[in-house]
């Protein structure tokens, strides 16, 4: 598979909506609760500053001997802690004292802290729960995808959904989303309050906000562009490192260290450039916005002054238009300036989240792509059941493990018929193409009668593995038919079909866990004795017993502590324990040396006795005693017959056999 650049670095439209919808599906209550708490938080923040202003006003009223305008202050000298003092803040009149105010303020703070703790905690819990659901949904969906998906997507890219992309979603849910809501709410409240004070000055602030948005879009956009480029460079470097580490031994025997370092440096330099640009633009967005905020501050002050000193330039607010009394207006300008600063800060905070949001959406979009992949369709209704025979020789369905199986075939009229599983497989006029264009198999006909051993021989790409892929329905045929004991395999439940086929693949994939668990993978409820038995059949018992912890030795990294041959033996044992009526051996013994293979062969022969077996092998010695050998070339069967017949024919098989021809 050629390495591919990640399909899209930008999110598809509607991703945000979809993600939020997903989020709300199970966590509606918690999210609404969080939003209420955030709102409370915002309200307490604002009201606490109002009450703080009242505090100052009460204090001022009690300590100023004269009022503005020169009149004596009747409240001067009253104890602000105990006496009720009348004050007016932002048009609100109140008679109160400092003790009351401080208690109220303390309560407001308390509510605010509680609200902030509540939403922080709730969002943390929601984030983790949501990620857990999301991860599980993704994995569970992935497990049901057809093999085609895995064959056409780079595994590294699938992996990065679970690592990088989920992490960007975490950022989005836990940080950006609440911040978006909080700053949004703050900005709206501030905007309204500002408009109540002065429309002209608000305009200045809004102009500044527009400048900030433009800056965020421009510089932040550049940063995002380079972040995307950086991701690609990282992928390239990763690919190179991976290739180099895997081939390190070759590099060393060829003294090729310096040259490969040179190649590495080129990629590393490219990464450096993109990464620097990305970080650099990311780093300067904040300072620029921050200082636009400072400019706005100064400009608002100037605007306030202008309104005041230019004759006829009257103040306009949402509720009022006209010239106003000086001290009131100056108080308004001062509090306006504070608000404009806080507004700028909020906008800046918001713009800091933009990169996270862009990245989060791109990540979510890729995750959704996986979840949108179509699952393997299973329209089968014929199921595989265990049966036993009663004294009359009639089949009776049973839940016990017997070695007799039957296909249970429900009919339209509600009746059931049972067909004994024999292992009769027929491929008739089968055409197949992976891409829909180039036919990989052309008009293939194969009959495997129960208990027969059928060998497939041919060069790489001739279509041997494809045939087995069709029998177990990893892929579906384009044309022709495949019958299993006379039943169209499309009618058989996919899981039951596969359960009836024991497959040993050339690529040995073992799972992290003990050797025992790995063999038991073929039959989850197998006893220890059954595992030992299977290991003996595969001739793996001896070497496993010699491992440090015997059958309890933990394998990791795909059994990297075992040799390829040993992994294949465990592979065979895993298949042996599954005890499937039909077997497919795809290069099952390719890495086992001829001497050991001979030993394994005895066990295999025992295993294959009475079963239909498809066998693919390079070593012709492995397939020689098959009942029929099919020689494939470019997707078509060019010769078929027993070993003796084919030798007689003196065709391709004969040439392969005598070594005149190369297989792979």
């Amino acid at each position, binding site marked *: *598979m050629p*390495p591919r650049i990640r399909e899209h670095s930008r999110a598809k439209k509607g991703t945000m909506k979809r993600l939020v919808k997903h989020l709300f599906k199970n966590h509606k209550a918690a999210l609404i609760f969080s939003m209420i708490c955030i709102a409370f938080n915002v309200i307490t923040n604002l009201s606490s500053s109002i009450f*703080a202003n009242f505090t100052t006003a009460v*204090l001022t009223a009690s*300590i100023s001997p004269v009022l503005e305008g020169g009149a004596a202050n009747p409240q001067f000298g009253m104890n*602000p802690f105990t006496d009720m003092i009348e004050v007016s803040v932002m048009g609100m009149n109140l008679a109160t004292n400092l003790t009351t105010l401080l208690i109220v303020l*303390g309560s407001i*703070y308390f509510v605010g*802290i509680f609200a*902030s703790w509540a939403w*922080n*905690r709730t969002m943390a819990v929601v984030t983790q729960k949501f990620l857990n659901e999301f991860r*599980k949904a993704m*994995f569970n969906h992935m*497990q049901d995808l057809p093999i085609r998906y*895995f064959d056409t997507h780079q595994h590294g890219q*699938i*992996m990065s959904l*679970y*690592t990088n992309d989920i992490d960007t979603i975490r950022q989005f849910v836990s940080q950006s989303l609440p911040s978006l809501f909080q700053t949004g709410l703050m900005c709206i409240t501030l905007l309204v309050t500002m408009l109540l004070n002065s429309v002209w000055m608000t305009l200045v602030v809004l102009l500044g906000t527009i400048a900030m948005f433009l800056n965020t879009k421009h510089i932040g956009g550049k940063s995002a562009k380079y972040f995307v480029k950086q991701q690609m460079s990282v992928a390239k470097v*990763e*690919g190179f490192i*991976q*290739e*180099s580490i895997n081939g*390190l*031994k*070759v590099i*060393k*025997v*060829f003294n090729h260290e310096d040259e490969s370092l040179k190649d590495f*440096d080129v990629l590393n330099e490219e990464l*450096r450039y993109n*990464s*620097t640009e990305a970080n650099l633009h990311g*780093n300067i967005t904040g*300072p620029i916005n*921050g200082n636009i905020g*400072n400019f706005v*501050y*100064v400009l608002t*002050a100037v605007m306030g*002054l202008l309104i005041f000193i230019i004759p006829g330039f009257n103040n306009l607010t949402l509720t009022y238009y006209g010239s106003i009394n000086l001290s009131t207006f*100056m108080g308004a300008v001062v509090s306006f300036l504070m608000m404009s600063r806080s507004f700028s800060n909020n906008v800046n905070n918001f713009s800091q989240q933009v990169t996270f949001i862009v990245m989060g959406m791109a990540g979510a979009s890729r995750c959704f792509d996986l979840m949108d992949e179509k699952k393997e369709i299973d329209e089968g209704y014929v199921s595989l059941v265990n049966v036993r025979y009663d004294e009359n020789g009639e089949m009776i369905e049973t839940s016990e493990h017997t070695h007799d199986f039957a296909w249970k075939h429900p009919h339209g009229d509600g009746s059931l018929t049972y067909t004994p599983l024999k292992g009769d497989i027929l491929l008739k006029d089968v055409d197949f193409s992976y891409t829909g264009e180039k036919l990989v198999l052309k008009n293939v006909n194969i009959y495997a009668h129960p208990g027969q051993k059928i060998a497939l021989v041919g060069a790489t790409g001739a279509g041997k593995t494809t045939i087995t892929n069709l029998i177990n329905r990893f892929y579906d045929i384009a044309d022709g038919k495949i019958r299993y004991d006379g039943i169209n395999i499309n009618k058989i439940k996919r*899981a039951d079909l*596969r359960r009836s*086929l024991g497959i040993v*693949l050339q690529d040995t*994939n073992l*799972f*992290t866990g003990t050797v025992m668990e790995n063999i038991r993978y073929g039959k989850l409820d197998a006893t220890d004795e059954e595992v030992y038995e299977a290991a003996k059949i595969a001739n793996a018992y001896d070497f496993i017993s010699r491992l440090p912890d015997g059958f309890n030795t933990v394998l990791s990294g*795909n059994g990297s502590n075992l040799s390829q*041959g040993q992994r294949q033996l465990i592979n065979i044992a895993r298949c042996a324990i599954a005890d499937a009526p039909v077997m497919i051996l795809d290069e099952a013994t390719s890495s086992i*040396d*001829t*001497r050991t293979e001979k030993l394994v062969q005895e066990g295999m022969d025992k295993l294959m006795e009475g079963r239909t077996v498809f066998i693919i092998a390079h070593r*012709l010695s492995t397939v020689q005693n098959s009942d029929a050998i099919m020689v494939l070339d470019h997707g078509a069967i060019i010769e078929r017959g027993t070993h003796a017949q084919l030798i007689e024919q003196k065709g391709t098989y004969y040439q392969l*056999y005598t070594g005149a021809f*190369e297989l*792979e």
Partner: protein
Amino acid sequence: MFKKFKYVFGSVRQYKKYALITPLFMIGEAFLECLLPFIMSMLVDTIRNNSASFTGMDAFTTVYEYENLTLKFTINVTILGIIGVLLLMSLLSLFCGIMGGRTAARASVGLSVNLREDMFKKIESFSFSNIDKFSSSSLLTRLTTDIGNVQMAFQMVIRMVFRAPLMMIFSAIMAFISGGMLAWIFVVLIPLIAFGFFLIIKNAMRIFRKLFKKYDALNESVEENVEGIRVVKSFVREDYEKQKFNRTSDYLAGNFITAEKIVALNNPILNTAIHLANIAIMGIGCYFIFKTETVDGWGYTLSIGQMSSLLSYGIQILMSLMFVSMIMVMLVLSLESVNRIYEVLIEEPSIKNPENPIFEIKDGSIDFNHVNFKYKAEAEKNTLSDIDIHIKSGQFIGILGSTGSGKSTLVSLISRLYDLDDNGGEVLVGGVDVRKYDLVSLRDAVSVVLQKNVLFSGTISQNLRWGNKDATDEEVIWAAKIAQADSFVTSFENGYDKYIEQGGANVSGGQKQRLCIARALLKKPKILILDDSTSAVDTKTDRLIRKALKEDVPHITKIVIAQRISSIEDADQIIILNDGKIDAIGNHESLLKNNHIYQEIYYTQNRVGGDK
């Protein structure tokens, strides 16, 4: 811990100037950030105090007297002047911010680039036993994710390391200037908060670090499932795997929630502190102000302006405290990554050039003098025991034995891919102990085609020139012809310029093996070792390769490990290895007559008419 950070951060090298200058800019920015509100309040106060006299545009230029009650100084100012200063400072702060952002990016990215290069170089210097120690996936993570973490931590450190504490100190000073003894409230609060943060971080970190390992395990299991999806599906284990995954995922989520709940206490603690301080200052402050204004001779004076600046500086102190704690968290989180990078960087290659090495390899003779070898010192059994073999230059040697009998180990000693223990005997090439040669010269003279053949992405001719990068086209074709590769290469559309995909995915196994042989030949070695290198080549071509090797390069000592008797039957000596020991040495005829293992293999292969 600091040693490791220092060591890893030391890779910043040519970007050091950026790393050093960044804090300067950040200090500048911090300084201006503290100063700006001060000037802003100056503007506000001037406007407020003098608004009564504003008449026209000259309000901007009229000189007013500004008295700062906090710092107790008086200056003459104009509004336009203050605005000018503000704008200038803002521009300066912008400059510092931009420069700081740029230099921080250059420095941190530079560090990660250098680290990646250092690690890559180090890995390339590893001997085979070093390579075996680290798994390839773990090396890859170290070179990507871990370096990414360090880059982030480094950027955070150089941007914040002076800025946050400075902000704190500056704010503290200002708090004391404006609030006098009231500022002590913060001094009492800071250690309390710091202690609270410390407890939170410590507890949460413990859980997090445990979880990160588990998280890695979860991702590994995803990888196994993706790689082994055919196994999962053919055993119909989808549901089993889902359950397994869901269990681990649930476990992770549960524990992350516990940890996050602890972390969620962070903000409330900080806020409680800020607000407690606010209330206390307001209460006490108001009392003081009231007394100051109404009672004469009260010793302590405080104004409303002073109180409000005390309040805002207090918030700044606590905020910078939070930043400091964030830096700590960042550093602790990156500790694991630093550790893993450090491990690679300090790993010493176990095979190094000797002092005063010998560069000249006389000929292709090889002697194993009573060699004993095991991969790990603690292993009970020797992989090779008492190997004593003497090979003359130009001989053709065959080695036969079952899986695990030590064939590959034996030949890897010749080019010193592994070293013998001091009392493990000696391996001589050209009559000299391999440990006395210059490594590059030795490996140039001994060409090995490894069992695990690897071609690299690039054209065929690029791949072949690995053997000798200055080889002429004629030489390349010469080598390809001996390896019987020329015929199929020229049949490709692009011939020698055909692009090989990663891992050689687009050529067949037999073709790959022949290209690898050609690559090895191009080195024009004195010794050529083929470790099971023709297993996928058909017998006829195999024979042709052997014939060409014999006729075209007769002076090269050839060692061939094979499974097929036919590949080695005409060797000068055939060595039968069994369980790490020499079972027999002889030629085809003598072994066929006397050696049990040889007979067994011969008859197995011949009964079925030879392998393939």
